[in-house]
């Protein structure tokens, strides 16, 4: 999980790739980052967006201090483990039973060491229970620990109105909203909450059919199928699409559900560097030329697995180039739009609308309803014969309980709101508000001098913290100021790149964002987090000296 292209700001990265890739996309011509794909299927696709992504590298002293901090933590970890082993200190962690002491040790690998000695010290920043709907503000239960985070107890107090910068609530539809939830209440009263069956048996309801037709219409594809759980959509359906003798090319930063599904399928998996089109092309060429490993037969299928927005980096997939590659080498494309559906594109239709690509070009669309629609579950969409095949052969359809009816109704009403089918433009306003909030938030953070990863249009904003001590201090101080953030460290991110991940929402008002930005400014100065080299000066000039003329 290396830091890709460190130190470069890709302005118009398509232009840069064109210089290096010698006609790999011979039908594209670039001109200052403007790509025009040649006529395909009689339609002229014009993609005129410049991709602005940056993954700035930190200054050297920051990396040195980060590793030093981890080193000191590790030394103290060894000391504590020694004390625990020799019985000088009481061991609160999991330990084998006395009879099993001579077996192969269970808790000596690095993950367990890290969890016992490093994670446990700052564990109070994760798994914090909340006790209200995850809207733009929420209530959190206060908890304290008496023995340095081994056990917690609730004081009984509730911290009210904490600003929510962590929930995946991109369009603000996850809030309790009495007026709009009337239909959900009616469906709950009519159908009840449980389905008590799988799709193949008695679990296919008319609500599911209504929802699937709506999802197909929303995405502009022929058919769709919905499942009860987003993680299970990936992990249970990729095995139905590929098997032994197929090749999977997956991005190195793909989500665990995609990786699990790929491994379960039994196909050969090769990873390409994050968003790196040259690497992907090289792998495709090798696959087509050399075939399967020993027999050199042709691969039965080549499937490219990518995500719309990557949740830890905030980067957006370079879709036009991947589509050009897949057409040239005759591969299939599976795109996981968990974070990008509802939040990218002028009307929220996802990453294909963002790039202006015809929806028929991607073979399999996958997405979840957890993020932008305020519900739970996932969908798979594409051509009708693909979806009909999945209805019969998907593990999830045969064995997993289908989606609950009130949740299906919540998705139906959210989707109708976004599409404008309820007669108002409120949905479209939410999508535009999200884009505005995203741009404002990212621009202000960049001006302040923080290192932010990812594309400027993605509503996931990772702010790099690097040092483990700062991670803990950041989360605790912000909670004192009544702002709830999610901080992520190893193993979800590389060891030296701990970060705080903000999820901007359409429900955040300008005042809330300004409150958060002020608090971040203060935190940045207190904890010295403003590492970026592109920091604007503190006192901007009010006028341009050279054009100032004295009037007599």
């Amino acid at each position, binding site marked *: 999980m290396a830091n890709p292209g460190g130190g470069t700001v890709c302005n118009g990265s398509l232009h840069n790739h064109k210089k290096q890739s010698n006609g790999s996309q011979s039908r594209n011509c670039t001109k200052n980052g403007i790509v025009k794909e040649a006529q395909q299927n009689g339609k002229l696709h014009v993609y005129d967006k410049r991709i602005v992504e940056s993954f700035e590298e930190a200054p050297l002293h920051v990396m040195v201090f980060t590793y030093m901090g981890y080193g000191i933590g590790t030394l103290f970890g060894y*000391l504590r483990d020694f004390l625990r082993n020799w019985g000088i200190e009481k061991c609160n962690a999991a330990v084998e039973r006395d009879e099993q002491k001579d077996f192969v040790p269970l808790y000596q690998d690095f993950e367990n060491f890290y969890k016992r000695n490093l994670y446990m010290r700052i564990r109070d920043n994760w798994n914090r229970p909340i006790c209200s709907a995850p809207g733009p503000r929420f209530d959190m239960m206060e908890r304290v620990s008496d023995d340095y985070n081994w056990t917690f107890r609730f004081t009984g107090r509730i911290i009210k109105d904490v600003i929510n910068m962590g929930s995946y609530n991109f369009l603000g539809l996850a809030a309790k909203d009495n007026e709009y939830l009337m239909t959900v209440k009616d469906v709950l009263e009519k159908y009840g909450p449980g389905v008590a069956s799988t799709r193949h048996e008695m679990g296919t309801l008319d609500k599911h059919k209504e929802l699937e037709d709506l999802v197909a219409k929303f995405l502009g594809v022929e058919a769709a199928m919905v499942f009860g759980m987003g993680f299970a959509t990936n992990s249970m359906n990729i095995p139905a699409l590929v098997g032994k003798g197929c090749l999977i090319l997956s991005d190195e930063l793909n989500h665990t559900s995609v990786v699990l599904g790929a491994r379960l399928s039994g196909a050969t998996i090769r990873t390409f560097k994050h968003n790196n089109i040259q690497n992907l092309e090289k792998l495709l060429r090798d696959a087509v030329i050399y075939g399967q490993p020993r027999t050199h037969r042709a691969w039965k299928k080549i499937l490219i697995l990518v995500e719309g927005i990557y949740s830890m980096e905030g980067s957006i997939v370079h879709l036009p180039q991947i589509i050009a590659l897949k057409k040239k080498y005759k591969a299939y494309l599976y795109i996981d739009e968990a974070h990008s559906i509802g939040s990218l594109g002028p009307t929220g239709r996802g990453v294909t609308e963002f790039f202006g690509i015809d929806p028929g070009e991607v073979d399999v669309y996958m997405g979840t309803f957890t993020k932008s629609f305020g519900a739970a579950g996932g969908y798979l969409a594409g051509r009708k014969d693909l979806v009909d095949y999945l209805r019969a052969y998907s593990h999830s359809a045969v064995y997993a309980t289908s989606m609950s009816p009130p949740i299906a109704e919540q998705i139906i009403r959210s989707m109708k709101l976004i599409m404008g089918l309820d007669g108002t433009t409120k949905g479209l306003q939410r999508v535009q508000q999200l884009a505005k909030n995203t741009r404002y938030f990212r621009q202000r953070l960049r001006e302040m001098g923080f290192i932010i990863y990812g594309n400027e249009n993605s509503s996931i904003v990772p702010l790099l913290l690097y040092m483990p*001590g700062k991670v803990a201090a950041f989360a605790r101080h912000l909670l004192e100021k009544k702002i709830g953030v999610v901080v992520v460290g190893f193993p979800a991110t590389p060891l030296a790149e701990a970060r705080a991940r903000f999820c901007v929402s359409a429900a955040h008002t300008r005042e809330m964002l300004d409150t958060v930005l002020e608090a971040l400014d203060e935190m940045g100065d207190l904890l010295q987090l403003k590492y970026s080299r592109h920091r604007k000066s503190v006192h901007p000039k009010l006028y341009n000296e050279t054009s100032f003329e004295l009037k007599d």
Partner: protein
Amino acid sequence: MDLQRVKEYFSWLYYQYQIISCCAVLEPWERSMFNTILLTIFAMVVYTAYVFIPIHIRLAWEFFSKICGYHSTISN
């Protein structure tokens, strides 16, 4: 007022040291142990510098001046 600012600045500096070296997440007895060890090492470094650096500089100066003096005696 200046004394207050200086004290604030030093406490901010101490806080930075605590965060960067993970002292902020260590338990109090670990913190004191770490600080003690660090101060001991630092004291030893300072003592060694105080005792040995003047002597080393003087010896180096003599060594180099002897070479230059040797040269000058040769050239004469």
